[in-house]
């Protein structure tokens, strides 16, 4: 974890309201794992005060380039989308725990909804590099205009399936239905990773549990500090042994996560 100035290398709109931004993080000197994120100060204007957390979508240690993939949803991401090559960003990176890779050569299923695909793509790349050959990516979105990273996944050698709510591409329906439909054929050793909206994560975790697949979920929560100090970003998790009489424990998405084991999380 380090606070550095990162120069914008490029920042372009890959499709309406989705941006890819690359920046130079040469000073980082640290291992970066898929599932980790960075916290960006997007403007000096106090009207948008907090840093904005974005998952790491790509990282190349050699060139020192780090990429994020984001959708403009409000003031902060819009300010970010106006950054141009050469401008400097104040970032804190890398943050969070990241995905834990499977122990052996198990088959892997990645289930991504919306911009959740970004961190899963980085995971797919990592898995490919580590020799995992049976990786399937399921990408879901409202419609075909909102499908991202498809080509990225294909390039890593993944098998890719698409689901759209309106059926404009691939499976018609929510991605969890597509997931549910393929799970029965999976080996019990299959590792599931999922990132996206909370109801989707909850559902993927539930299905995985039912079929006894290990599932890691990457959560999002409103964050202030990003380093575990402020207790803003908590999620209800099952109490561990030794945590007394409590029914649950609030854990920090920024520090204890953002990746949690599916069964740990109390979905509400």
């Amino acid at each position, binding site marked *: *974890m*380090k*606070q550095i100035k990162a120069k914008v290398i490029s920042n372009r709109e890959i499709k309406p309201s989705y941006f890819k931004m690359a920046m130079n993080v040469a000073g980082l000197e640290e291992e970066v794992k898929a599932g980790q994120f960075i916290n960006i*100060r997007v403007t000096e204007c*106090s*009207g*948008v*005060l*907090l*840093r904005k957390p974005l998952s790491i979508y790509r990282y190349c240690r050699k060139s020192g380039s780090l990429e994020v993939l984001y959708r403009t949803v409000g003031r902060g991401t819009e300010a970010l989308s106006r950054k141009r090559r050469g401008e400097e960003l*104040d970032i*804190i990176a890398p943050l969070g725990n990241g995905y834990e890779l499977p122990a052996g050569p198990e088959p892997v299923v990645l289930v991504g909804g919306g911009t959740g695909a970004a961190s899963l793509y980085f995971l797919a790349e990592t898995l490919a590099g580590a020799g995992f050959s049976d990786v399937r990516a399921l990408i879901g979105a409202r419609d075909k205009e909102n499908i991202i990273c498809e080509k990225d996944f294909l390039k890593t050698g993944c098998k890719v399936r698409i689901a759209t709510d309106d059926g404009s591409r691939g499976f018609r329906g929510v991605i969890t239905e597509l997931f549910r439909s393929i799970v029965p054929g999976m080996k019990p050793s299959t590792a599931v990773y999922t990132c996206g909206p909370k109801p989707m994560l909850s559902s993927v975790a539930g299905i995985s549990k039912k079929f006894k697949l290990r599932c890691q979920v990457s959560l999002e*929560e*409103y*964050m*202030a*500090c*990003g*380093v*575990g*100090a*402020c*207790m*803003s*970003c*908590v*999620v209800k998790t099952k109490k561990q042994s030794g945590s*007394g009489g*409590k029914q*649950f*424990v*609030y854990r920090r998405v920024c*520090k204890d996560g953002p990746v949690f084991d599916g069964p740990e999380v109390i979905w509400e």
Partner: protein
Amino acid sequence: MGVKKGNSLAVNIGGIRMKNPVMTASGTFGYGAEYSRLIDINKLGAIVTKTITIKPRQGNPVPRLVETPSGIINSIGLQNVGIEVFLREKLPFLRKLKTRVIVSIAGNRMEDYVKLAGILDGEKIDGIELNISCPNVKGGIKSAGRTGAGLFAQDAGISSELVSRVRRATVLPLIVKLSPNVTDISGIAAGVEAAGADAIALVNTFRAMVINVDNRRPVIAGGTGGLSGPAIRPLAVRLVWETVKAVKVPVIGIGGIMNTNDALEFIIAGAGAVSVGTGIFVDPQIPLKIIRGLKEYLSENRLTGIGEIKGALKI
């Protein structure tokens, strides 16, 4: 910018001697360790810990946070590890630091404060801050057996009573953190001073609300939360100025401090020290930048100590 020899940022806040007047505000700097990889904590004047309670607290449901124009609203609900775990697991790290360690405490009832102060009295810490002004927990005036549902710090009599009881439980320097949600801060401040406070910290957050107009619910799960950040700075400066006129003990200025200029506003208004809260989230370097900036201000203005501009407001 060369710093003149002899310039001194050292201050004495109610018996706590700090090498500079720049502190971190309770709840925004965790237990110190969280930020240790990002800034050199030893350079700070003092750290105030997250508020500690007797038992560990789970805190409030999420969402606990929302951004507002130039501010944030939080309702953490004092999630903390409790005094036992704090002493065992968090304090050892803090003790090793070359900065002053102030432990913030709170409870639902007056007795909780007294008990906590008693426990901390024997510990190697530099001071206690009484958080009697957190807008995000139950308790307060009602728990003192009076009518009304406000915070302890919204009632002058109750605040004084609480402070004088805690005063008897510890010889450690006692900072009392007040609430800005009051009609008249000076009476309350004078009361806690008379009851034995060694210093006063303000402001805690302002009770605030944001509504999601789509689902017609408050964005913060608990309904309301506390507003902090630059939005409240002009209110905090005014409150500190009014408080300084009412008391002799040092006042720690808090509220939306983002840079040296902001810190100087509080000091010129009369604050003996300043705490950075929300600013830490925006840029963890802010406290250290302010320390450097204050040194430069002293040099540029040919001043030998920060005391020379404390309360220098011409009005």
